[in-house]
């Protein structure tokens, strides 16, 4: 048997040659391709492709659906269709309403499934097959961090959507990644004083935390700022993403001697946990002679909608709220409402803004190359996108702006009127030194792909 295999005859040589040729064709094919562009996915035709990578299934699917609506609206406005939304209030704006740098904006979509693997596969498909020049989206910091490092390696820009972990622009920051959304540190810094004022300085807190990067950093920040106000932390419990039933985590809370429950959860997880906590009668309990309270550090209107009655009177922080009274917010809510029939969530807002900011940076730089776009975004100061004056800090690619502390409405006037703004914490109170989280941005990557 083995002897026979060693004998090579004429036919086998011919076959081998055929195999070799089959191998050589694709290799030549890609070598030829690689040298035609100056940077990854340089747009060559009349169109430019953006990739919107959002969770369409899983615990953050509601946020993902709303993000996608906002992306579509942003593309419409950039192409000069519709009423223009915040393009009319944004300043300083270089946008012309004819796409980006004269090229019509098109987009591709993908499902992250709130899983790093699926999200990276989806993002790779956008970059390698659809030739997307920028990837945006999010709703889970784990996913955002995974996709951000992928974009760094590939040499395209990542405009993070909803991601609230300190790590996204902290220890896992990348030169090609930018975040408009606020982070856990800012939430903590804004909420700490408000909570101390409302509930007193002598409180004992119990944390239930989503077991991944966002949960960890939010727990850390909330502990830091509540302890600064004199609170004690009784215990912190980590729960897996998408747990569904929280009764096993909630029952030990009351016997622990804690009088405040801090839920470091988001999306459907937060809705489930909060609803179950309220069903347990936690909010009617009196512990240590004080009313038992629940805090949800990261709030959103979509979650409030899901939690219904349970949300009333509960404190939290948001990046933006559709009921703000500035011109930009009004313009955005109006055009989003006309398109879809209801107001946008803060996830939708941040995704819309990120798309506009990216387009504007390309116009400012006069190119799609990361070598031009990244410096244009770094340190960029702007206004008129719903958050007041905002700055993209160059040192860590984090946007700095005022933070909203909100409370669940006791008497909602409509099914969207769920959160009322308690305090607008000014930017100076939530700012921090970029060095405290470590990490490095790394180089600008203009390698063709």
């Amino acid at each position, binding site marked *: 048997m083995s002897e026979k295999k060693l004998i090579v005859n004429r036919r086998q040589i011919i076959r081998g040659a055929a195999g070799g040729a089959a191998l050589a064709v694709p290799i030549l094919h890609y070598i030829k391709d690689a040298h035609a562009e100056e940077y990854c996915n340089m747009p060559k035709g009349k169109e430019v492709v953006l990739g919107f990578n959002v969770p*369409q299934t899983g615990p953050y699917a509601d946020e993902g659906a709303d993000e996608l609506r906002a992306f579509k609206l942003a593309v419409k406005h950039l192409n000069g269709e519709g009423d223009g939304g915040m393009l009319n209030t944004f300043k300083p704006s270089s946008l012309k309403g004819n796409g980006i740098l004269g090229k019509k904006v098109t987009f591709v979509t993908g499902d992250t499934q709130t899983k790093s693997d699926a999200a990276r596969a989806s993002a790779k*498909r956008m970059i390698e097959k659809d030739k997307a020049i920028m990837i945006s989206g999010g709703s889970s910091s784990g996913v955002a961090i995974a996709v951000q*490092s992928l974009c760094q390696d590939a040499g395209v820009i990542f405009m993070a959507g909803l991601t609230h972990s300190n790590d996204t622009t902290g220890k896992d920051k990348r030169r090609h990644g930018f975040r408009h959304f606020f982070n856990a540190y800012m939430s903590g810094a804004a909420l700490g004083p408000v909570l101390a004022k409302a509930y007193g300085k002598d409180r004992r807190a119990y944390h239930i935390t989503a077991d991944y990067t966002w949960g960890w950093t939010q727990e850390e920040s909330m502990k830091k700022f509540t302890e600064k106000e004199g609170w004690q932390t009784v215990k912190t419990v980590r729960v897996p993403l998408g747990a569904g039933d929280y009764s096993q985590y909630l029952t030990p809370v009351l016997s622990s001697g804690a009088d405040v429950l801090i839920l470091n959860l988001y999306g459907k997880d937060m809705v489930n946990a909060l609803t179950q906590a309220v069903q347990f009668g936690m909010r009617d309990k009196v512990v240590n002679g004080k009313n038992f309270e629940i805090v949800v550090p990261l709030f959103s209107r979509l979650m409030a909608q899901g939690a219904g009655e349970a949300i009333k009177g509960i404190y939290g922080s948001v990046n933006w709220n559709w009921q703000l009274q500035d011109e930009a917010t009004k313009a955005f809510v109006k055009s989003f409402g006309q398109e879809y029939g209801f107001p946008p969530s803060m996830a939708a807002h941040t995704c819309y803004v990120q798309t506009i900011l990216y387009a504007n940076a390309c116009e400012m730089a006069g190119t799609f190359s990361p070598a031009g776009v990244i410096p244009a975004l770094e340190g960029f100061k702007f206004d008129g996108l719903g958050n007041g004056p905002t700055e993209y800090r160059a040192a860590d690619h984090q946007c700095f702006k005022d933070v909203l502390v909100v409370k669940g409405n006791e008497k909602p006037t409509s099914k969207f009127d769920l959160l009322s703004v308690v305090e607008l914490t000014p930017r100076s109170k939530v700012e921090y030194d970029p060095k405290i989280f470590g990490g490095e941005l790394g180089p600008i990557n203009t390698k063709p792909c």
Partner: protein
Amino acid sequence: MFKRNARQDLIFFLVFSAFVLSMPVLLAPIGAGYPDLLQKFAIYGLFAIGFNILFGLTGYLSFGHAAFLGVGSYAAVWMFKLLTMNVIPAIVFAVIISGLFALAIGYVSLKRSGIYFSILTLAFAEMSYKLAYSVLTPLTNGETGLQVKLRASGPVTDLINQDVRVLDAAMGIEENGIPAPSLFGLEITGWQAFYLCAVMLIAGFYIAMRINRSSFGMMLRAIKSNQNRLNYTGVYPRPYLLAAFTISGMYAGLAGALLAVTDPLAGAERMQWTASGEVVLMTILGGAGTLLGPFLGAAVIKYFENIFSAINENSLHAVLSFLPDPVENALVSVLSMFVGEGWHLTLGLLFMLIVIFLPGGLIEGFNRLIGLFTRSRKQTTGENREEA
């Protein structure tokens, strides 16, 4: 007889290799000619081919093979973090670790057969998943996933966030940012990574073919057809089973290592039961017990997951714009249920149709087609085709 088989096998193997290597050109017209998807075809093809050595030959249905895939990925990423970005130590180490892991789990699970074996493997895999997800966070970094990081410049306190790469450091390899996996200086990303996976797939396919044709493979098939008869003739089947289980675990580990090579990040979700179920689907869809079937099944499922899930209403409108508006809108609203988020539905329907009408999987379908066109030649080649 034996000689002809060996010769036909060689031709079959060469055709398969040529097909795999020219996939970038051949599959471009159906939108699959980009590196990431083709890497997935090769990697999951390898995973399914290995799974088929256990399931297709012995009939033992393991519902926990994703655990070995995950272990392979973690092992490979740890090699990247500790030793070197060269892919060879990572692949070797991943195969060894997942082989040991499979040996241990197989030793316990194979004490039972049938549904009890399946449940045992499922339980072990779910246990591994939960361990990776929360308990073993110092080894796996939990939900965030284990990633390659910058090489530490000072003393190392936290191995999850600071890499050492002692071999690279000893050889004085400079790093600018986070390095990509390499093969002696050649960066393994994009197309290079695909060709690495393709070569591994071809090697794995060859080994599977040799196993299939060997007396060991015959013994495995004997276990499938009647284990009692084997016992009565004085053959103790468990060592054979354990060997098959370990080999398929090593294939899974190799696939896991290649996943880590093409994308240096290992997440716990790779070990979830849905991932274990996926490889079962791949094998059955393609044709369990055949050589080519598992690879085809893997490619079809990955194609659906990546291409069908990305079709949205806009792209449907663009394709169907030649139709009159009312017809177009009606058609788009019907079709959009089956694409985008609905790709699972399409895949489910396809799976149902195949299991009902083609119990032998896609391979049976091809055989029937070939049978239709070459009815006269069927007598002479049919037997061999069944096995292909």
